[in-house]
């Protein structure tokens, strides 16, 4: 079998995660999990949507450093990515920090991609890395779809870009700050292989990403020799209802039943029936804020012990889709475990 699972040589800890979200996310089922939101209008006091997203990233990173009593000199690197061209939300949002910056693009898989690289960097440097990911419904609509006030109907397979930013503190030392509970480690990493199975419908991103998620999940279980039942949760990023059922169906056809432990961040963040979000949430912010705000505290508190985060991304370019090309997907896997025991 190709490509081994990467394991950090020393324990690497996922120490903390901060979240800043929009109104729709704050009133959703996980609303109470998030650190901050804009009670007014999702502009975060800025005059453009792009600046609003940058401000969310800045607030998430600032809160993370403050909460852990860290200064710029205490962090080796900032890794961040978003959906906007040139990753402007990350680049501009992290301008105030005097920390080396590495920009990432993995579409909606950016949070998982960031955690993989942050874990490797923490392992390599023996220090701390901050990794952030963000998306904003309004800036994403502008870039990928229609103007905000354009009147149209969405297809049932379409997804709703999450307004949210999260920042993670990844460290080679256990750092609990004032938080109680168990230590949370990043135990295993499996970067995804891009996969293009010919989906051209930009309103069905779940279908574009499902084959990539399937490939990563199949490779992981084949390489690790584990079974889905040994995990509390296999958490995909934003497959939504459409991609989730495709993934579970295709996995079952391959002889792997993950449906009992499979959850999807895009199906957790909104009350889909009530809030008209169709196939669920998506965007870099989706898996980022659910992992930081909901999964990490659950691991710490003992409600979860062993989680596979499979960050899914559709590498969509509206221009290239107009040129007739289909949409590739990618899915990065991060195994997050709680407790001190070694494997």
């Amino acid at each position, binding site marked *: 079998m190709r490509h081994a699972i990467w394991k950090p040589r020393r324990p690497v800890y996922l120490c903390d995660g901060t979240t800043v979200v929009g109104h729709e996310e704050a009133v959703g089922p996980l609303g109470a999990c998030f650190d901050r939101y804009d009670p007014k209008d999702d502009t975060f006091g800025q005059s453009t949507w792009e600046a609003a997203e940058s401000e969310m990233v800045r607030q998430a990173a600032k809160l993370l450093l403050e909460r852990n009593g860290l200064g710029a000199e205490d962090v080796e690197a900032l890794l961040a990515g978003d959906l906007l061209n040139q990753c402007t939300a990350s680049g501009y949002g992290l301008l105030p920090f005097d920390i080396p910056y590495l920009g990432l693009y993995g579409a909606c898989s950016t949070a998982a991609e960031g955690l993989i690289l942050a874990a490797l960097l923490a392992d390599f440097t023996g220090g701390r890395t901050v990794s952030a990911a963000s998306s904003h419904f309004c800036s994403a609509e502008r870039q990928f779809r229609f103007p905000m006030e354009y*009147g*149209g109907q969405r297809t049932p397979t379409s997804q709703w870009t999450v307004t949210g930013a999260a920042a993670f503190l990844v460290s080679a030392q256990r750092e609990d700050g004032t938080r109680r509970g168990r230590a949370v480690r990043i135990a295993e990493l499996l970067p995804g292989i891009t996969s293009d199975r010919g989906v051209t419908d930009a309103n069905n991103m779940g279908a574009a990403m499902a084959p990539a998620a399937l490939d990563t999940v199949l490779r992981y279980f084949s390489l690790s020799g584990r079974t889905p039942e040994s995990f509390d949760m296999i958490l995909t990023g934003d497959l939504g209802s459409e991609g989730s059922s495709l993934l579970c169906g295709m996995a079952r056809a391959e002889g792997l039943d993950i449906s009992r432990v499979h959850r999807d961040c895009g199906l957790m963040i909104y009350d889909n029936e009530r809030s008209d979000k169709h196939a669920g949430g998506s965007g870099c912010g989706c898996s980022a804020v659910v992992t930081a705000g909901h999964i990490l505290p659950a691991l710490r508190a003992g409600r979860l012990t062993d989680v596979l985060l499979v960050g899914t991304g559709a590498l969509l370019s509206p221009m290239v889709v107009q040129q007739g090309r289909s949409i590739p997907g990618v899915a990065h896997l991060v195994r997050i475990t709680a407790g001190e025991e070694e494997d």
Partner: protein
Amino acid sequence: MDTPGSDYPKYVRKHAKRSPLARDCARAFLVGGTICAAAEGLLAAYRALGASEEDAGLLVSVTLIVLTALCTGIGVFDRLARFAGAGTLVPITGFANAVASCAVDAKSEGWILGVGAKIFAVAGPVIVYGTAAGVAWGILYRLIRVFQ
């Protein structure tokens, strides 16, 4: 269990949840019909105020465009359209919203490269091919008249 095999896009299309066509049509008929009935009312009102038939028709169009632009600007139109679908898209309201929403959206990039350059980003194809179709039909009509 149906598996994707080699034709994944076909499998995906078969698997995808369909739009509720009957519900969408009913809503489009209801809202679109209401807009058209209101426009007929306006036409009668303008005629009663002394406008010629041609002028009254023009005034109705202008009124609908202004109202749509206003509703787009205050953020109401997209909510109505999400409910109505083709009911707001097919009348002149759809075209007016396509122009006005681009103008509102592009304001952050300034008057020249923002609003000026992007105002027809959505409605542009309608203008280009609507004009081209008009020219083509004009030539055809002229030829028909010559040979009549």
